[in-house]
């Protein structure tokens, strides 16, 4: 490997990014991800609008807890989860179904570089969509709070840190789930059943022993959320975080889990064969 190789790989990854982003982020068939991400934002803006219209006071404390619940239960466990299922499983398995993967394999690109390019494209697509939606949702909470209260929360109450933590967690969720579902796309011809099993595994995380808890994306993500969700109602068990992991461990832990997934995916990519008839 020399400097020339790194320059070439950078160019190739850039070309793959360009191709894939056009297919996923800017195409009509990506509409469902936008809807999935925008739904809570629309809801929170509707709430803000109704409050402003009826002259109701904003309870920032209550709204922050509601957003924390929406973020952990809806965004992390459902919206980003299914968004990543759709995007990352489509990267290779989807192209196999559409019989267009061979064009990539007939280009002078290392399979690992192809994998890296596609994975990055998936992360960029999902992160842009879900981080923007998260930011818009947070803006909806602050927009109908009195200006002084909002400024105090943001600049004196650690609000900026909370906003960055939510956006960062959303991005890390895309990174983590992306790695998991990219591998699923390689290992399983019908990745929906493993996706359902992953959903079940993530839901069971509070009940698992400490060692098995760590083999979970949601375990690290929950630790990174700035506000804990009150353990109430039917889904109280999902809110419980018995051993919160500090950020300096959660982020590397998640990245390590993702790297392990990508390593397996790279090995599979190297052995990939085109046999469209079997699909």
């Amino acid at each position: 490997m020399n400097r020339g190789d790194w320059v070439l790989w950078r160019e190739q990854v850039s070309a793959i990014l360009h191709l894939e982003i056009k297919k996923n982020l800017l195409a009509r068939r990506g509409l469902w991800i936008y809807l999935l991400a925008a739904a809570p934002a629309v809801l929170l803006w509707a709430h803000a609008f109704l409050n402003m219209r009826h002259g109701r006071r904003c309870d920032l404390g209550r709204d922050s807890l509601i957003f924390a619940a929406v973020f952990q239960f809806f965004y992390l466990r459902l919206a980003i989860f299914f968004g990543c299922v759709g995007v990352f499983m489509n990267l290779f398995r989807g192209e196999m179904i559409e019989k267009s993967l061979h064009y990539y394999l007939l280009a002078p690109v290392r399979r690992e570089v192809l994998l890296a390019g596609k994975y990055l494209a998936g992360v960029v697509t999902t992160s842009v969509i879900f981080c923007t939606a998260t930011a818009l949702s947070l803006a909806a909470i602050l927009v109908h709070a009195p200006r002084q209260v909002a400024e105090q929360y943001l600049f004196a109450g650690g609000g900026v840190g909370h906003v960055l933590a939510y956006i960062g967690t959303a991005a890390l969720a895309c990174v983590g789930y992306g790695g998991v579902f990219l591998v699923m796309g390689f290992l399983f011809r019908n990745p929906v059943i493993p996706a359902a099993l992953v959903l079940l595994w993530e839901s069971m995380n509070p009940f698992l022993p400490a060692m098995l808890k760590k083999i979970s994306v949601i375990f690290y993500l929950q630790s990174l959320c700035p506000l804990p969700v009150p353990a109430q109602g039917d889904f109280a068990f999902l809110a419980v975080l018995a051993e919160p992991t500090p950020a300096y461990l959660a982020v590397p832990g998640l990245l390590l889990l993702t790297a392990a997934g990508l390593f397996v995916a790279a090995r599979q990519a190297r052995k990939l064969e085109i046999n469209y008839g079997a699909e």
Partner: protein
Amino acid sequence: MAVYKRSYRGYAGPVTSEWSRFAIIPRYAYRGLFRSKIMTAFFVICFIPPLVFLFLIYLANNFGSFTKVFGVTGATSPLAVNGEFFATFLGIQAGLSFILTAFVGPGLISGDLANRALPLYLSRPFSRAEYVIGKMSVLLMLLSLITWVPGLILFGVQGVMAGRVWLSHNLWIAWALFAGSWIWILVISLLALALSAWVKWKIAAGALLLAVFFVAAGFGEAINAVLEVHWGRLINLTYLFATVWNRLFRSRETFEISEASAWLMLGLICAGCLALLNRKLRAFEVVK
């Protein structure tokens, strides 16, 4: 050269009657489905809960004899075979049938659309309605076999064991099983077919079916939490069915939405699915 030899004759033999022509589709579909060992194994697993419930019915009606074996006399069964018992049975079988639908449903139409097979069907004396009925009958049959059919058999066994009085007082349970199963089967079959027609990719259709249930439920809860209302439950399919079954099985549990609104919502979902099928099932494709 003039055509002077007209030796070709059209087929003049018996043809399948029009009303049963749709049955060609499920005949071939089942052949393909049961080639999968996983699918066959799961289908067999779906009959385990009915066997368990059969044992429970036997136990409930013969508890005294059963406990005598262990030297206990005069014991009464803690288990009551009533509406709640059969509602629990239906709930379990509905869960299993959801998984079965996630296996079977997505591939029914998406494969035909992706491989451009629809013109082959529709260029015969075969309408779109017959096509949909044929595809739907695959699911209707499979899901019936694991929901109301074993449910009614269990009801019959209980009736035989408990006696005519019990049977006459609880005939409504049979109706609840039948109607409750059919509303579930219809909605979930239409949903699976509509999603299968929408995305043209079997795997995406399967994921979408999962998403419709879980994401809609999650978003419904989000609506309730943010707007401090109850109508978010209207997009929670599990809750809708629970509300409908609650009334059918005369449960005392209270629900946050009315039965009428639950029925209306389910009706709208069915109508939406039919509209989507009508739009997507065409013998041609427009490329812009």
